[in-house]
């Protein structure tokens, strides 16, 4: 199952594991409150809140229930329970690399059905998970370090890497470009407002810096990091420093706003696209096996 780790091709297995792992952790973290959010006994029951959903192309759970109501009548909460179990299994299989293309497609489809039903709970994390699951389906992510390895090994993964890099670069550019259009990002007010949002929890109080140009600098630093991302991440000399800056930006989103999952997926995508493929490390799992074998032989002899 484990092969020699070559960073130029193994970014794909890191991509698969990090995306499936984060999506799984996020879904598991919601289990304690699942009924309060998603069932018919929720604060905003699905039968009411579903009425104003925008999406109508991908069928929602309610639509699926009504389609099968004549053939196989099933209660909504039972359908939701089946969905929960299948989604978790599908993500675990994708994480392990069990028929990765099929499990990636199943995970993507289930993810879309779920968010077609609960569109109003969707935020940035879900947008990037959607993108990543789509690429897990398109890219040969099951080629390396997977339970079931593809028969046809693709060694040239460059074009897949370029697709991911271009998509992330467009995302960052537009993120920064839209920020520069609003005056409040240019004078630091937006950063100040974001960290004082009633719904987010900051673990650090930065109010003592209100009389310094700290927030102004932070606002401009965010705009520059995001808008110039496509240029400086693709220049060899500046890549590492820009990546460091972007990771710091996402870590501050996690610490100052409490958006841990959003920060984690963004860091994972950046590492996948711009760190692993360019790191010169090659790592052979067989050498670890050999070291362990040697050690166990020594301990047997000494006994």
């Amino acid at each position: 199952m484990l092969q020699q780790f070559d960073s130029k091709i193994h970014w794909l297995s890191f991509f698969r594991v990090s995306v499936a792992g984060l999506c799984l952790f996020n879904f598991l973290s919601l289990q304690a409150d699942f009924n309060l959010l998603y069932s018919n006994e929720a604060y905003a029951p699905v039968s009411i809140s579903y009425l104003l959903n925008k999406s109508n192309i991908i069928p929602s759970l309610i639509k699926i229930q009504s389609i099968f109501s004549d053939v196989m009548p099933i209660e909504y909460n039972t359908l939701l329970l089946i969905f929960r179990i299948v989604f978790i299994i599908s993500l675990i299989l994708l994480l392990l690399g069990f028929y990765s293309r099929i499990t990636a497609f199943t995970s993507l489809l289930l993810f879309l059905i779920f968010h077609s039903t609960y569109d109003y709970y969707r935020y940035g994390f879900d947008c990037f998970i959607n993108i990543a699951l789509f690429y897990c389906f398109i890219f040969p992510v099951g080629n390396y370090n997977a339970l079931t390895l593809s028969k046809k090994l693709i060694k040239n993964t460059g074009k897949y890497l370029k697709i991911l890099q271009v998509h992330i670069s467009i995302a960052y550019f537009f993120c920064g470009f839209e920020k520069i259009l609003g005056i409040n990002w240019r004078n630091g007010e937006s950063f100040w407002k974001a960290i004082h949002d009633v719904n987010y929890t900051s673990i650090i109080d930065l109010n003592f810096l209100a009389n310094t140009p700290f927030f102004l600098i932070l606002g401009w630093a965010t705009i520059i990091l995001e808008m110039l991302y496509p240029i400086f991440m693709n220049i060899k000399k500046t890549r590492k420093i820009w990546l460091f800056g972007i990771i710091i930006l996402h870590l501050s989103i996690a610490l100052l706003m409490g958006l841990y999952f959003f920060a984690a997926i963004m860091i994972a995508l950046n590492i996948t696209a711009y760190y692993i493929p360019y790191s010169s490390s090659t790592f052979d799992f067989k050498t670890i096996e050999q070291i362990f074998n040697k050690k166990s032989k020594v301990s047997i002899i000494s006994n």
Partner: protein
Amino acid sequence: MKKYFSIVLISIHFGLILFSCSISTYDNYYDSPSNKKENKLMQQISKFTNSNAVKLYGELSACQYGFSFYAPNVRSSGYISFENNQNIYYPEFHSKEAKIRFSVFECQISDFLLAGKDTLIKAKDEIKYDSLKSKYYDLIYKSISAKLFTQNKCTDKRSNIYYTLFDYPSLKSSRINKQAPKAVKLYELQTVLNK
């Protein structure tokens, strides 16, 4: 042949992403419909991206989303509270992630309530849609009310549910003098439980 085919597919993929991002940026820049200028190019692009085939591909690949997180400005946010017998209750969750997701929903309510103030500049069909939306939110408030009532074992049949906008003093005003955050009640609904 295979190479050219994949080049065409990749071009379509990134073309769609660029279209969607441009529309999103344009919409956010002219955030109020009354401010929106007639732009034929944008209308044509919107028409194309709203076709069913493009929409389906867009949903599968997440191509139809713009990336306007906290831009051009950070949105105002608020919270729902419930009062019964002079006690105040809030929708509570075990995990932080569930709280964040519920707050995304609450933000949509504050967007709607704040946008509702501009009814004079809205078109007729928009007002009609808004009145439908306000009925919808009334239903949501009533359902949250009923849930919090049973959850907290309330005794008084009369209760109130509020939507409060959290207004934190701006950076500029905080520099001049220290101000306490303001809570502005945007919505209030009295409910009476019939058993």
